[in-house]
């Protein structure tokens, strides 16, 4: 079967607002009450129907996690604290290190201060010269000191937490300007552990979802029951499911079984990482190629590209990577509609 999202989006002219980023519900007004004074200021400047800048104060750490019983470890980020204009939303995240790492929801206009710590066991052997971890984010604006790279790359500093080749920091603060024009889903990942390439392929990756502040919005703005972030690795999907109402992030791990209530709209955020190129399908579903009116049922995706699409849940099926070897390795998962 094929599925079309509502016709209005098909009629939307090609403009600054890509399809992948136009169907975000307004952020809950209630959740903003704690920041009323900001709201008032925002209204005075940009009007009530526009979103307004929020300040996110985030603290994360990185840990080594033991998961295969053979002495091999992966690395993972863990959310320690996330406050939006002072409102603590940390409980939407897992209280353990996860792969993928925390999915951070932002809105165009927001500012982020992210402090990274490093809780990797110092005894854990490092193959290269750097024991420093970092967060290098895609998509949003930041100055060179928030690039999250080593000095050998940025010519300024080893921009991470822990012992780098040239600079050592117990923690490192990144500032992101979630500027207009940065709406979309973007990966973040380590760029510093072991060497200047980082260890994103060992588990140090997550994503930000930047909702657009653009106005005016469609009258019946889109509401997703669920959002799924699926990272396509070299042998498996690493996924997380987000309940759009509670914002809770669950089902972290390999090839997760995703659930959706029937006849609701759900959004998939695909990001690839590693060395393989992939060909993704969600069997029996079609969706719009972002930014176009083309209905597609598969997408080629390479490391650190993103591909975001919306479908209406009709039937249970499987998501699959059709890369020759990955498919044989069982790189697929269930999408259960009930």
């Amino acid at each position, binding site marked *: 079967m094929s599925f079309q999202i509502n016709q209005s989006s098909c009629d939307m002219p*090609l*403009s*600054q607002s*890509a*399809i992948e*980023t136009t169907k975000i519900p307004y952020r809950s007004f209630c959740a903003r009450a704690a920041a009323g004074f900001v709201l008032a200021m925002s209204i005075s400047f940009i009007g009530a129907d526009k979103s307004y800048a929020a300040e996110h104060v985030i603290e994360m750490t990185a840990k080594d996690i033991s*998961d*295969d019983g*053979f*002495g*091999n470890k*992966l690395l993972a980020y863990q959310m320690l604290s996330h406050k939006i204009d002072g409102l603590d939303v940390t409980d939407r995240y897992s209280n353990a290190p996860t*792969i993928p790492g925390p999915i951070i929801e932002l809105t165009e206009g927001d500012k982020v201060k992210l402090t990274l710590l490093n809780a990797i066991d110092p005894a854990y052997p490092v193959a290269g010269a750097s024991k420093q971890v970092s967060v*290098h984010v*895609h*998509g949003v*604006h*930041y*100055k*060179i000191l928030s*690039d999250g*790279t080593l000095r050998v*790359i*940025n*010519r*300024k500093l080893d921009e991470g937490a822990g012992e780098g080749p040239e600079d050592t920091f117990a923690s490192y603060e990144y500032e992101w*300007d979630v*500027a207009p*024009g*940065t709406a*979309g889903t*973007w990966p973040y990942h380590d760029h510093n552990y072991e060497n200047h*390439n980082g260890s*994103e*392929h060992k*588990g140090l990756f997550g994503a930000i979802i930047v909702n657009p502040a653009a106005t005016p919005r469609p009258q019946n703005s889109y509401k997703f029951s669920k959002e799924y972030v699926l990272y396509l*690795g*070299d*042998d*498996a999907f*690493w996924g997380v499911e987000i309940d759009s109402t509670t914002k809770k992030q669950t089902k972290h791990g*390999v090839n997760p079984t995703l659930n959706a209530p029937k006849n609701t709209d759900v959004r998939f955020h695909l990001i*690839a*990482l*590693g*060395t393989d*190129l992939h060909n993704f399908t969600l069997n029996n579903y079609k969706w719009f190629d*972002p*930014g*176009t009116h083309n209905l597609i049922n598969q997408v*080629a995706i*390479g*490391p650190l*590209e*993103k591909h975001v699409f919306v479908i209406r849940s009709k039937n249970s099926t499987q998501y699959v990577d059709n890369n*020759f*070897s990955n498919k*044989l*390795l*069982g790189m697929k998962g269930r999408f259960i509609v009930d």
Partner: protein
Amino acid sequence: MKEQIIKFNKHIAAMAVVMLFAVGFLSSSMAMAAVHSFNFTAKTLPNGQLGYATGGSDAEAVIPGPALFVKQGDTIQVTLTNSTAVDVGFNVPGLVNSNSAKATPGQTQNYTLHANKTGTYVYHGDNNGKELLGLFGAIIVDKKNGPIDSFVNGDGSIVPVTQADIDKQFVLFMVGSTFWGTEISADGVQKPLWAAPNLGAVENDLVRFHVLAIGPGHTFHLHAHRWLKTDTATVIDTKLLNDGTDTHSFTIKAGSGVGPGDWQFHCHLIAHMEAGMHGSFRVDAAGSGDGASVVGASPYGNILLGARPSEPGVVTLEVSDEPASWFRSPRGDAIVGLPFDIKSKSLEVMYPGSSVNFVMSDTNGVHTISSLLWPTGAHHMPFDQSAAYRGGGIVKLTTPGLYVFTCKVHPYMFGAVIVDDPETEGLDLGNPAMDYKIDLVTGITGLPTSSDLAVRLLRTFFVATSPSNWQDYSTGIWNLKFPTLPVRISGAPFGNIQDGGLALALSALNVVDAPLAVGAAPEKPGVGEVWVNTQFEKTAGKYKPGTTTVVDTTNWTVKRKVALPEINNNNPHNMWTNRDQSVIYQTQWFDTKLSMINRETGALIKNITVGNTPSHVVTLPSNDDLTIAINGENGVAIIPAGTTSVSKMLPTQAHGHTSANPHGHWVSADGTKIVTPNINTNDIGIYGATGGIHARTPTGNNAPGAHPIAIGMMPDSSKIYAANLLHHSLSVVDGANGALLKTINLIADYNPIDGSFADNDGNGAIAVGVLPIQSPVSPDGKAVVIAATGGQIVIVDTKTDKIVKMLPCDPGCHGANFGAKEGGGYYAYVTTKFGNRLTVVDIDPDNNGDISDAHIAGYVSLVDTPSTAKDDTVSSLPGFGGQGVLAVPNVYNGWVQNLPDVWKSGLTAAQRNPVGH
């Protein structure tokens, strides 16, 4: 050194020093459809790479080729003159081209293209991989009128741009794992930026990028900048460039919203990042910098015989499936023809600050490009990647000395670069600042280049990469020749050291006209056939190497050659057979295929895609399913009995962990366990035959790079033996639980400094196995026979797990496997890569259970004779490349019981049930 040899190449010396040239007509928008005519010449650059030049015959060829800017509707006429030694075409995927022919060397062809669609197009030389050496460029077709692109401004607005708005453009070709760049100024002047450049701009410059790829795919990422997905309003910052040819053009405002900085651009494939595929996009604040780009490594630069010693140079090594030329310099033919013959096409010479570039342009397999040894203290070492891949690599070398690279998947692929200090006489083999010492990937540091081990490694290199140094028994004589260049080393292993540390040339080690005789065949016949993968033998009907040589053990003659020209059979490496012995399964190790061959006729039954770089195949004795180690990846492929496609791949590591890259696996006699030597993670993996990781046992005793490569198992599966190639050791592992029982040092009796031999391990035998490969256990469980590529056969008694014997083997000793001896007992059949005979070892001549009298029963030439049946004509390297070996009937416990009666009848009772006796 350089002064002596710089006067070589007259046509290079004549070349212009600086090369800036303008092409393209930035035609005015009101013009009618224009016709653009270009005179192209395909040329060979000083480092052997190929490139296109425009303009007169003196024009310098550039990589990427000249960028052609035209408007939609225009016509492009290209007259191509071919000054190279290979056929060169002008192919433009996506545009209609009047001519698909190629210009042969010295000839000219004309091509007319209609630029009827906007977009960016790759043009290339269309010559079977050689185009990846530099015969590629960009054609940019823009709209005739109005804006040609849009960028995302710092405030989020999308702003259209016209040609006149653009401050500079970059063409960046992603080839192998190297960026090749050209900068185009606002007035259309093109400046080559060569390999691995650093780009520059001033903040708020409007910069248009044309990113193109040819060959294996990439993703392009530029830090802190974002742009539009083509023809949409979707904002991206990473773009896939798919396999084959692909392009992506976009415009950015430099530093918009993010400010100045050294912003990295790179391919985002991990293996390519590790292979050096990155550069800097430096955005200068207005008024504090000129935004100039930094030119990268040039084929005209500071390399042996280079044209412009003042510029950083680049030597290139093509990764190839071709025997001995696995890392081949594109100017290899010229280099070995020099008066000071450096003997190997896989050895390059350059000067500090230049780079070595690798491109996997002549291979169907996946590889790594990994340091084996380097000068002590050298920067950027070791060079390595965490997974096998398609692509290439680039690394800048600043410390003088010898660098040897290998592929971890195919560890006899060798390429070497000598970074020579131009101030000293003689080629530097080690770091001059560290007494010419070298470090090895196995953790050995500060090894004097005068040591016996260093000399053996050099000798191994010059044997492996020079077929003229191989032992061709059909000629009756053997010559081993080394380069005639004087070298600088740590001491005096092979001659006098002159003042200043200059040693004799390596040619002091030459062997001249040594007699070479195959030797007598075994007196006692074997049972059945022996199939040998003569993996390097070339035949006339295909361009990929390799045949399978079938020896009749009843008379020790070569019965058949199986080349399979219809599938361009590529490096056949290892084999197994089905229960009734009617089908031979054979892997193509530099490819993606497994072949099924009719054993009686040698005819191809089926050629099956199984995954990247399959190495070994073994059946499960329990159900005849095939298990195939996918050496370039992370699992074991399963083909159920009676079917011809892979049903699943059993992972060899937990999800997300480093690929194990299993090589020469074995299966337990009851068919329940698959045991793999994991070359990338340096462990032995024990897996359930239906899946599941039972145990993984590191084999390196905490030292890096053990490189376990092949498994043998006791007939009752009680013990597992794994040869560790780079640690020269044999691991003994409990077959039930994977516990490491013992590590047998195979070079305990060898002094790596002075080369002396003594019974240092006190086992009563002086025995050494350098670089051990296959290590099967005899079907009766008495002996492990180890083929060591250093030229030894080592025999281990399984009762004591001690070495009992060393027997001689030819250089590149590799494969070993057992077959039945007529009347009882077993022969071990041992193959060699750089010799063309089969060595037959009798592990227990008197059949008394004591294997200390193991001896060489005889030899069999693997060269075809007039009576040999064949499906193709041997054209060169006859009988060479012996690797996988399989005796038919298969007499290992678990399999022998399944043989049909016709095969069982030729065996003794003990052979039919080896464990019961």
